[in-house]
């Protein structure tokens, strides 16, 4: 009997310590995962501003892809997600003080390099059946069933899509012309 009491109180103690710890971590993660939080750094502000007027925010579905939806591993890859987020957060703070000027062009390239197709394909999953866009079907097949040596990234063709300076809000549903990928960026 006594044994159970000790055991139960140990569990209770664990919960008392762990619950606030977990919930605070969770709360921190949620607070630091919003575009508003990303925009607190002046280096990132223009990127967030451009994103706000892009089709990743303005579409008929009302769907919004946040910064971390594209720029971090999926949250269900818990370890990767936590590690990448903490690492980038810490690195950004250090770099903020060390680097004189933020090189937008260089960082854009670095972002393209870091993108994994899986990040895009979290949302864009049905890419092979597009009867109205057979060219896109053909191109997507060459990515999803890539010939060895010809592995490609989504961002190789779909670039300057979100963080491009525009005068207007790019409502996807009001775009008159069909969206086209731009072709291979490095060609």
């Amino acid at each position, binding site marked *: 009997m006594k044994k159970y009491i000790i055991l139960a109180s140990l569990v209770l103690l664990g919960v008392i310590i762990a619950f606030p710890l977990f919930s605070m971590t969770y709360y921190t993660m949620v607070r630091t995962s919003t575009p508003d939080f990303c925009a607190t750094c002046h280096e990132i502000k223009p990127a967030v501003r451009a994103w706000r007027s892009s089709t990743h925010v303005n579409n008929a579905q009302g769907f919004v892809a946040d910064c971390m939806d594209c720029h971090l591993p999926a949250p269900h890859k818990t370890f990767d997600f936590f590690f990448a987020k903490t690492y980038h957060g810490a690195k950004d703070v250090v770099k903020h003080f060390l680097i004189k000027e933020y090189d937008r062009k260089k960082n854009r390239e670095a972002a393209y390099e870091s993108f994994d197709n899986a990040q895009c394909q979290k949302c864009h999953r049905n890419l092979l059946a597009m*009867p*109205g866009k*057979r*060219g*896109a079907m*053909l*191109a997507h097949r*060459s*990515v999803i069933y890539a*010939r060895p040596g*010809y592995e*490609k990234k989504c961002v*190789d*063709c779909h670039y300057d899509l979100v963080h*491009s300076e525009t005068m207007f809000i790019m409502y996807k549903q009001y775009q*008159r*012309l*069909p969206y*086209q*990928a*731009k*072709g*291979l960026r490095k*060609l």
Partner: protein
Amino acid sequence: MRKKLVFILVGLMAVGLMLSGAVLSVNAQQNFPKVKEFRIERSIPPEAVACIECHKASNPGIFDDWARSRHASASITCLDCHLAQPGDTDVAKAHEKYYSQKDLPYGEQKYKVPIAAIVTPKDCSRCHPDEAIQYSKSKHANTLEIIWKLDPWLNKGMNSDNERKTGCFNCHGTVIKHDKNGIVDHATWPNVGVGRLNVDGSKGSCTSCHTRHRFSVAEARMPEACDQCHLGPDHPQIEIYNESKHGTMYHAYKDEYNFNAAPGTWTPGTDYRAPTCAACHMSGSGKVMGTHDVTERISWETQAPLTVRPQDFKPFPAGTDWKVEREKMKNVCRACHGDSWINDFYNGFDKVVEDYNEIYFKPAKAKFDELYEKGLLDKTKFFDERLEVEFYELWHHEGRRARMGTMMMAPDYTWWHGFYECKMHFANFMEEANHLIETGEKAYVAKDFPNATGDTQKPPKIFGNK
């Protein structure tokens, strides 16, 4: 009297009726030809319908080609390739006026779209990325850089800009320029050269081989697709091919060839009997995968002055290993030939290359350099002294014919158009060179060399502003 009047009136009416009846029956009998129509019942954007309807009238040839293409079958319309991207500098401003021309079908503002006339490999890469990547690595795509590094006609300004536009650059490609209004520089257009430098930075033109607006795979598989450029005294590949047994068999059996096999499925023995240019240099065969890098499977640079391996070709070193590439080419041969045939053929070819390099080219080059060193030849220009022309033709004309004739099995090009001419030129060249060296006499410089007015600045878009 009254009776008579009625009679006349009735008679006139009868004649009138008969006449009108005759006119009617003439009309009814006339054969009105029916206008050939093309209906579009597809899910394509109304802007694309406007393109098609208007250009069907203004350029029926373009329209008809497209209508017969596989693009049309797949509902790939004008817009998929010609729609300009935001920020493009080549938007055709002059085209926009048609959208307010009321007498045109679809001449309405609501159909207005930004259009670029020139379609580039980058545009094609939207749907055909692998082909575009492969092509970008080829000597085809980079030929402008190569000729500007090597060629004395360009670097010494020995021909005129228009001779270049209508001659050299027609195959090699121009550096496309636009003015502020999106109007293309007339000195750079029209052009579908394989190495055309486009405003978006991509190199080449897919329509060199897949001509507009059919973009046919079948056409590019035929040797006729290559023969606009690969002919003549300096690289008679099509003549060589036609002389070879491969060419003979192609001409005899081409009506049996299945040129329309789906991309990546064209199979020797099944779809064709003897290979065409594309069959050996591009198409997949056996374990070898197909490629749009036409220069990939090459193991000797038979067009270079001194024959070298592709990875050692200084103006544009290939990212390949010649041993791997030769094995690929042998694999292609194996579809129809046994190993001893293939290996013994390559032994003969390698020997020809060695002979050309060691017996013909190197001694001539050494003598040529000696003439410059001793100041007997003048370095300021090229082609204005006879020995320069003779040396040039030794490697650029008959030297190539001998090597290429061997590689593609045309004995007449190896010997009579090749080594025979090399021997004669070599002997004459040496005779005159030795004469100058012995007497110390300077070579005659042609003072009246015509039309040597071309720009000698290497294109800054390729070489930077040096």
